[in-house]
């Protein structure tokens, strides 16, 4: 069963037709008053031009503005807001910073958006137990900033960490370059305060390391906002490594770079990160940030070792030898913290640098077994030729998590179509190679149509049933992840099925 979920026809024009004469959306005045009483006037967005700004997240191919946005400041306010919506049968979509790349925060049959941007307090940093208690709207990087003076940091480091929220990270089970050694978000969340769609506040997990019973925190992490709103989390903090050795390794082609990656892993050394960038990305990044990447390289790796200073030099020698054995043309060690910082900054801003090459891009996110990296890159190359769209590759090579970046121009309809189809073909190839549809960006609306490639109808039903434990009426972020009958409607016309 394949649903035509991602047709550009779904690009929804927000309907100014039903605009009130005074420029406010036609939302029930009584509802606005009730919600305003909870969050205050400043906590509501209801003007049409303001709502427009929220019509997409980092996935810009599809657009749909909410009818109303509520920005609660606390768990209690969130609970009262959801209760109010529940009583009226209104569905909602959670949103953090809107950096998501799979349309997770796109309202589909969800008239109200609940934005966590005002729940951004760091409540406590406990250095003895190495925990942080934060509200869900706290920006990822701020957690590490607050932990720094205790010699601690928060390990999951998505490239968007300067902006994305802990709530969004939890919903997408986000990873980052250092996932290779430290794991993804789910390995770092110990407890969660969740407001269920009917307004009930539940505490899952807790500060203790090992809890008995079913892992409900694990069920909420990665649920993409379909089980309610996370308002607080207890996060694990990690001791800042004493030292780093960061290499920039140059190769003539992706094949030899991949060989190096496999050989490094096989050696038993676990680097903090192994990142790869292909030629197109290297060019873009170098043009944008001038960090001295070799322009002639077919591929570069950033390999980072971290740990006790005493152990690192031996490991560093091993890594350098392995890289040369695999055909590296240059192995450069960052000489200072500043150089290391510049390398990472360039890597983390690679997406943006690519943005300088074309008006729009779509970042894909798939996983293949590490050894199949050369194969998938060959497929990507073919796909790029077939659709006449440039595709760059930057990825977490150590985990086999690829990020093909497909360049297009939204003003040219066939390019939009091409970008969508190219993405699909690449994902199908990932699955065929024994991989997965997403490493870290989530399914959202973007990859819903591909879910049946990976899961049987039985699997999908089981997932839906798990979701129903938390959200039986599907009020929280409806029509996401699981391709259901409800979501397969062609949303060509304004989609406000739920009248409010």
């Amino acid at each position, binding site marked *: 069963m394949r649903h035509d979920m991602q047709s550009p026809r779904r690009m929804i024009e927000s309907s100014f037709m039903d605009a009130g004469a005074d420029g406010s959306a036609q939302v029930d005045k009584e509802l606005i008053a009730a919600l305003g009483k909870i969050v205050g006037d*400043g906590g509501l967005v209801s003007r049409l*031009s303001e709502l*427009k700004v929220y019509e997409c997240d980092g996935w810009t191919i599809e657009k749909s503005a909410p009818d109303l946005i509520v*920005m609660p400041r606390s768990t209690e306010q969130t609970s009262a807001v959801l209760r109010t919506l529940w009583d009226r049968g209104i569905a909602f979509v959670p949103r953090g910073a809107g950096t998501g790349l799979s349309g997770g925060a796109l309202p589909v049959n969800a008239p109200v958006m609940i934005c966590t941007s005002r729940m951004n307090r760091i409540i406590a940093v406990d250095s003895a137990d190495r925990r942080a208690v934060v509200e869900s709207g706290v920006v990822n990087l701020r957690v590490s900033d607050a932990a720094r003076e205790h010699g601690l940091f928060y390990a999951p480091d998505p490239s968007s960490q300067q902006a994305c929220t802990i709530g969004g990270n939890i919903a997408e089970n986000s990873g980052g370059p250092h996932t290779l050694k430290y794991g993804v978000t789910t390995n770092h969340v110990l407890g969660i305060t969740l407001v269920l769609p009917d307004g009930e506040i539940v505490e899952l997990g807790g500060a203790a390391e090992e809890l008995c019973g079913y892992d409900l925190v694990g069920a909420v992490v990665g649920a993409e906002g379909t089980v309610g709103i996370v308002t607080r989390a207890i996060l694990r903090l990690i001791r800042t490594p004493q030292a780093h050795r960061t290499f920039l390794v140059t190769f003539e082609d992706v094949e030899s770079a991949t060989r190096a990656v496999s050989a490094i892993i096989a050696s038993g050394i676990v680097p903090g990160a192994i990142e790869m960038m292909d030629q197109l990305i290297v060019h873009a990044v170098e043009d944008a940030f001038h960090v001295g990447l070799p322009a002639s390289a077919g591929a570069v790796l950033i390999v980072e070792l971290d740990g006790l200073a005493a152990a690192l030099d031996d490991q560093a020698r091993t890594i350098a030898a392995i890289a040369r054995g695999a055909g590296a043309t240059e192995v450069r060690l960052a000489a200072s913290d500043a150089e290391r910082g510049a390398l990472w900054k360039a890597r983390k801003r690679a997406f943006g640098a690519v943005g300088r090459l074309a008006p729009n891009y779509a970042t894909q996110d798939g996983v293949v077994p590490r050894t199949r990296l050369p194969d998938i890159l060959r497929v990507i190359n073919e796909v790029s030729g077939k659709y*006449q769209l440039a595709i760059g590759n930057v990825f977490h090579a150590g985990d086999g998590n690829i990020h093909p970046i497909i360049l297009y121009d939204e*003003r040219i309809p066939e390019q939009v179509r091409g970008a969508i189809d190219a993405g699909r073909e690449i994902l199908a190839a990932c699955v065929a190679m024994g991989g997965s549809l997403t490493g870290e960006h989530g399914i959202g609306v973007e990859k819903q149509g591909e879910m049946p490639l990976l899961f049987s109808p039985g699997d999908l039903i089981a997932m839906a049933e798990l979701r129903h434990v938390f959200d039986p009426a599907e009020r929280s972020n409806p029509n996401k992840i699981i391709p259901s009958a409800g979501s397969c409607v062609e949303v060509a016309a304004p989609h406000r099925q739920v009248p409010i």
Partner: protein
Amino acid sequence: MASRPAHSIWGRKIVEYDLLFDCVHCGLCLEACPTYAISRAEMDSPRGRIYLMKALAEGRLDLDSDAVRHLDACLGCRGCETACPSGVHYGRLIEDTRSYIEGNYRRETPDLLRRGLISAIFPYPARLRILISPLRLIERAGLRPLLNRMMPRSIRSWLELLPPLASTQTSASISSPAPSSSAQTVVVHHGCVAQVLARSEIANAEALLARAGYRVIHLDRTICCGALDLHSGNRARALDFARANVRALAASGANAIVSTASGCSTAIAEYGMLLKDDDHELSEKARLVASRVTDLSNLLLKRLPMPRSFSCTVTYHDACHLAHGLGVRDAPRELLRSIPGLKLVEMVDADMCCGSAGSYNLTEPEMANALARRKADSTIATRADYVVLANPGCEFQIASELRRRGSNIRVMHLADFLAMAIRTSDE
């Protein structure tokens, strides 16, 4: 490849349409935006504002009071340009948008009046001098607090921003040696408001430059750099001011151009772009002048004989256009650190706007005050004796908020601070 429309068919020519596509909607700029930090809503963020511009350009949105409000609320601080990996030319986008708004949107009368007043007075030092002269008398009689109390709130907040006028009269606090004939030459652009309200900064900057071995060239008369107009959408007059400045600065022959107000130096550094469509001679001169702009701290670093010692704790606030416009962050800090006995402590979000932003604190007092409070919080948390910065606007804004809190942290321009440290250690 299929062709693409240069404009949307219904569109407005509000900004250069292609520039809008530099923004890839990634959101990485959100936290760097001071107005987003306060309102936490995306209409008050760079991404949101660019989206509004785009919707306006494509005719998907009316130029209504909602859209204008959020575009007005932009400080023009350019924190977003630093944060953006995609190289969005936000400064140009907002300047062009403002120019479009002024031409196509009818503001409410009080707003028009306020903006008209600022525009008629600030760029002209002679007018500003006349306007504040009665205030000088009142201050001398010790009646300023009383006057402030008597005024309606809107005027009072303007008055409270003004520094003690006695302090604005000081001349250089250190002497300067005669320059050698082969010395590099520097012009200190005196700005418009600065030459009335921030004279010690200018005098000290010139004295420090002389001490560092430069020959300071004086212009006969300094004309406003045009930044104020550019930021408020009065492009035509901005261009006139820019042309006059290009002629004067080019004629001076100075090797380097600096200003004690970083908004001015950044504006001059962008003259090349601004006047690129002028006739060849002028546009070439503009490029030349622009290329000579640098910051005082760059010129002084490693050349200024430092005081023997000056024991105190200092925190440094990055003026927006210095950090985000000219990219100057390290040189002022290094200068401070090179003073023996001085301890430099970083404040949280040192490069986040204090809300001053040219005349922003006069047109958008609510947001400006919220930002001033935030800045005062992070300043006070450092427990420093001084907060040093390199822009008079920030100086007045932060000082006014610290005064209100009864804090005894002293706010000083880098030029004043260095001069004081040198004088104290010489004595």
